[in-house]
C-alpha cells in the first residue's frame, strides 16, 4: 500500500495531494476544534479556557500550515516522489490485524477475565504472526498467564478480573 497521492489539475497546474496525511491532520485539528467548543459550552470563564483556547487556536492555525504542506506541485508527467516508506499489503494486513486483536483483548479482558483472555490473545496473535508449532502456541500463553496472574495478584495484590481463579469476573 504505497502512499496515496492522487493528482488533480487546477488551472493547468498538476497538484498531488497527500490524502492520508491530510485526513489525519484534519481529524486532529477537528478534535481540537470540537474540544474547544465543548469546553466553551461547559464553562466560558477564564479559569476554564485559559489554556484550552490558546492551545486549540494554535493547533488550528498550525493545521493550516500542515494542510498546505499536503499539496505538492507536480511538474510535467512525473509521478510525485513517495513521502514515506510504502507499506506492503502483507505488512499492512499484519498491522491492522495486530490492532484488531489488541482491541479485542482490551474489551474481552475485563469482561471474561484476563486469564482466559490473555491465553486466547497470545495464542491468536502468535498464530497470526506466523507461529505454527502447537506446543509453543499452547505453552507460551499458559506460562505467560500463570506468571502474569501470579505477578499481579499475588505479589502486587492488584485485583484483576479473572475467569478461573478468584477474582471479580465470574
Amino acid at each position, binding site marked *: 500500500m504505497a502512499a496515496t497521492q492522487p493528482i488533480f489539475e487546477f488551472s493547468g497546474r498538476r497538484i498531488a495531494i497527500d490524502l*492520508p*496525511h491530510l485526513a*489525519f*491532520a484534519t481529524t*486532529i*485539528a477537528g*478534535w*481540537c476544534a*470540537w*474540544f474547544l467548543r*465543548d*469546553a466553551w459550552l*461547559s*464553562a466560558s*470563564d*477564564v*479559569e*476554564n479556557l*485559559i*489554556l*484550552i483556547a490558546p*492551545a*486549540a487556536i*494554535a*493547533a488550528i492555525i*498550525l493545521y493550516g500550515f*500542515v494542510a498546505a*504542506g499536503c499539496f505538492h506541485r507536480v511538474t510535467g508527467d512525473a509521478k510525485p516522489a513517495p513521502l*514515506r516508506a510504502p507499506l506492503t499489503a*502483507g*505488512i499492512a494486513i*499484519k*498491522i491492522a490485524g*495486530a*490492532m484488531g486483536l*489488541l*482491541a479485542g*483483548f*482490551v474489551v474481552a*479482558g*475485563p469482561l471474561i477475565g*484476563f486469564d482466559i483472555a*490473555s491465553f486466547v*490473545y*497470545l495464542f491468536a*496473535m*502468535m498464530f497470526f*504472526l*506466523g*507461529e505454527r508449532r502447537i506446543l*509453543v502456541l499452547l505453552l*507460551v500463553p499458559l506460562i*505467560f498467564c500463570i506468571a*502474569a496472574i501470579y*505477578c*499481579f495478584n499475588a505479589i*502486587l495484590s*492488584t*485485583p*484483576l478480573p479473572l475467569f478461573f481463579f478468584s477474582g471479580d469476573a465470574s
Partner: protein
Amino acid sequence: MIDMAALASAVHLLASSWQPWMVVIPGILIGLLVHSVPGLTTSMALAICLPLIPYMDFLQALIFMTAMYAGALFGVAIPAILLNVPGSASAVGTTFDGFPMAQQGKHNEALGLALAASCIGQAIAYLLLLCMAGPIAAFAIKLGPPEMLMVSLWGITLIARMRGRHFARGLMAGAFGLLLGTVGLSARGAPRGTFDIDLLLDGIPVVPAIVGLFAAAELFNLVGRDYIVDDLTRRRVDASRILAGMRDALRHPGVLLRGAILGSGIGILPGGHAIANLLSYSEARRAARDPEKFGTGDPRGIIAAESANASSEGGSMATLLALGIPTGGATAVMLVAFSMHNITGGPAFMRDHADIVYAVILSSLAQVFILGLVGFAFIFVAGFVVKVRLRMLVPMVLAMAVIGSFALAQNLAGPITLAVFAVIGWLMQRFDYPVAATVIGLLLGRLTEGALLRTYQMSGGEIGFLLTRPIALTILFLLIVSIMLPYLRSAYAHVAGNPPGKDISK
C-alpha cells in the same frame, strides 16, 4: 555549607547498624523489576510497599524508598532501549538513540551506557545535594507558577523542534498533547471533552496513553520482522560489551555533567523529572558539532537523557526534604511515608533532623555503587530479550501492557486508552509527527493550565508582572534562543557562504 557535626552523626547512624543497609538491594531490585513491566510506575511500586513502612525505622524506610526510586530511574531505560517502550515519561529521551542502537545490535553497549550515565548522574546529584542542600532549598522556594509555566512551554517547544523534520507538525503535536492533558473536570468542576463518560472525568490515564503512543505503536511496526536485531551474530548478550558501553559513557564527561546539573535543577520543579531527560537531550544535541547523528543511535543521546533522568531524583529529594513539597507521584508517596512516622518534611525537618538528611544523601551515594552491580546483573538477564522471536515478544509485551494499564487505572479506561493511543501513535509516526511532543503536552497539560491560571491571578492580567520574575524571564529567553538558534546559525552560514550541514530539526 555542610553541617559537619550533622554529617558525622549521619556517618555514625549508617555505620553503627547493618539494618538500614538490608533494604537497599531489595529496594533497587523492586524498582528495576517494576519498570520492566510497561504500565507500572515508581509511585505505584512505592504505594504498594507503603504497608511495610511502619515496620521499619524512619531512616531505614527512607533508604528503602530512595533505593526503589534509584532502581526505577534506571529500570525505565531497559525497555526503552530494548523495545522502544519508555515505562514512564522520564525515559522518553532514552528511546531516541537507545532503540536505534539496539536495532543495530549494540544493545549491550546501549544498556551499559545507560547504567553508567544513570549511576554517575545520581552520584553528581547527591553530591550537589550534600554540598548545597541549603542553597538548593532557597532556590527552590523562589520557583513559582510563572517559572513552572515557562519550563513547561520550553519543554514542549524544544521537543517539537528536536524530533521532527517539520516544526509545524511538532508544535501541532505539542498543542494536541496539551489539550489531551486538560480533558476531564476543570478546577471549577466543568467537564471538558469527556463525551459524558464518567471514567474520563479524572482525565486521560497518562501512563497507559504513553505506553500506547510509544510502545504499542512501535510494536505494531515490528510485527513483520523476526527479531529486534536482524543479524544473528549481533544478538549475543555480552558482559564485556556492556562494560565497554559503561566505559564509553566516561568518554563524554561534558554531556554527563551537563545532563546531571540540568536534571538536578529541573528535578526541583513539580513534574520536572518528566522533562529533565528531554531538555538534557535537546541541549546535548544543540551543543554537538554533529547534531544530525542524534536519533540514529548516538551514545551521547543516551548519556544526556539518562544522566538527567537519574539526577532529577536529587532535585526532587531536595524539594521534598527541604520544603516538604512532592514534585511527582513518587515523592508524594514518600511524603505519606513521612507522615506514617509522624514527621513532616520542610525547613524544620532540615533543621531538626539534619543528621537523617545527610544519612539519606550518603546512603544514596552508596546506592549508586550497589545499583551499578545489581543493574549490571539485571541488564545481563534483560538483554536476552533480543534473542526472543518478535512473534512471541510482541504479543507478550502488549498483553503485559494491557494488564498493567488495567491494574493502574483499576477500570477499563486504562486498556482502552492504551489501545486508542496505540493507533494514534502509529499514525503519528507514519506521518512524521514527534510523538514525544504529544506525550510531554499530555503530561504537562494540567500542570501548565494550573501554572498559567495562578500566574494570571498573581499578575492580575498585567504582562509587566513577568519583569519581576528574573528566573522566568531567563527561561523565556532560553526558550526563544533555543527556537531561533538553528535559524540564526543557518543565516550566519549562508551569509558566510558556508552552507550548513543537513539539520533534521528543520
